């Protein structure tokens, strides 16, 4: 089996938001819709304060609450763990959006563009009317993954088969791979580093790991 997962090395992330921009470019999302975000979090109290830059988005949970609540079965989980939305089935009820503990979902009611009511040439070309009035979120660039696999490429290793945010990361903080393969890049990283997943107490089993220190240090 395959379980696609993402790893964010918090020691490396500098909060540059390049992944955010790359995601918006790759997926042509509307203004204000950012399937990949990077939070700027402050921890500790003055004078012992530190900052952490935390990439967030859909965690592609193994037990996704968004899928369970979806009345239309538009939200589904692929065998490889990627949580998807069928825009043609979704009724835009927003139930998945209140069920997601990661605030990863968006709904855009009508077209909106970067410079007012008129789309740029690129926006006009890439506008997807199916996305209006329904839920949308990160899909781990599943089209790139599927296309890459069909061409014999390895997601997480070959850029053409890897999510755009990971490709764009200037600090090599974001990684992608198959968690079910013990020798994959992400499996090794998770094994060799101290890590956590966001809101683990909610038992959604996110497919997104955060590294914060070396194992054994």
């Amino acid at each position, binding site marked *: 089996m395959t379980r696609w997962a993402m790893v964010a090395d918090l020691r490396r992330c500098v909060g540059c938001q390049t992944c955010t921009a790359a995601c918006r470019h790759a997926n042509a999302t509307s203004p204000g819709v950012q399937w990949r975000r990077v939070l700027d979090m402050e921890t500790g109290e003055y004078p012992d304060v530190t900052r952490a830059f935390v990439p967030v988005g859909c965690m592609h949970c193994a037990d996704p609450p968004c899928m369970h609540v979806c*009345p*239309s079965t538009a939200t589904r989980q692929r065998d490889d763990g990627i949580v998807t939305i069928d825009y043609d089935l979704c009724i835009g009820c927003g139930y998945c959006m209140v069920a997601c503990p990661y605030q990863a979902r968006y709904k855009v009611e009508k077209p909106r563009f970067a410079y007012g009511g008129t789309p740029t040439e690129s926006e006009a070309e890439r506008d997807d009317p199916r996305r209006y009035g329904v839920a949308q979120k990160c899909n781990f660039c599943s089209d790139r993954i599927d296309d890459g696999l069909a061409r014999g490429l390895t997601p997480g290793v070959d850029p053409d088969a890897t999510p755009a945010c990971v490709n764009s990361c200037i600090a090599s903080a974001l990684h992608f791979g198959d968690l079910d393969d013990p020798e994959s890049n992400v499996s090794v990283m998770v094994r060799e580093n101290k890590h956590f997943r966001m809101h683990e107490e909610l038992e959604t089993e996110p497919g997104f790991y955060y590294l914060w220190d070396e194992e054994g240090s």
Partner: protein
Amino acid sequence: MYGPAPWLQDHWDWRAAGNFIGGGTGTGLVIAGAFAGLADLPFAPFALPALAFVAAGLTLVWLEIGKPWRAIHVFFNPKTSWMTRESLVAPLLFATALAGAFFGWPWAIVLAALFATGFLYCQGRILMASKGIPAWREPRIVPLIIATGLTEGTGLFLAISAIVATPPVGAMATLFGLIALRTTAWLQYRRKLAAGGAPAGALKALDEAGRWVLGLGLALPAALLLGAAAWPAGTEGLAAAAGLAAMAGGWVMKFAIVTRAAFNQGFAIPRAPVRGAGKGGPGAKPGWN
């Protein structure tokens, strides 16, 4: 502002609150009306307004969804979605309640009460399954939603009774018990939510609403009911006022839960990362009590 502290969700607004208000009051009224119907009071004067409330609530939801013309898809996931289950119960509730109202069939009235109970339970579970909203996923919200639905429905039953007949003493006693039960459910829900940890904004909103729940939903109807018992000449008016106050208290509570206390989970890190030559530190969970 997008995190990291929890912020008020805006995916479900007053229209969603309207569904919980209409659905709770309507199903509560069907149940109260069913007891009356089986006790030889007419069922129709209660069933028809009750269905109007439920229909109004469902219409509000329909107005909120992004793709109203494919609303039929709401029936596609009975396996895991409480929204689907609520939608499936709704036509059964309407069919049996209408049959009971127009033909007076006892079996239809009983079934209507059962489907109303199911609908009300689904509403509680819809909120509880919303894992992204701490104030909704607290399991004590289910008994709270059921208790307030029954209270609202019985309250409206008394108000309608005052118009079509004399309010039954049993219904007044039942409302008295229900407002006490709802208050207990409210206090337990609030206590459990705080004990388990919740966004500070959610607790603040609930405390603001709590004043109305206790004043409008408990103290005022309790006083009016006692007045109705003590002053026979004014029983009808006082009982009706008590019922309406009890109903309004529930509406305020649900409106607050859905639109004011619905802070999302926000973001948290259990550990701060090791950066450079520094050391890792404690994590952060901003915006939580």
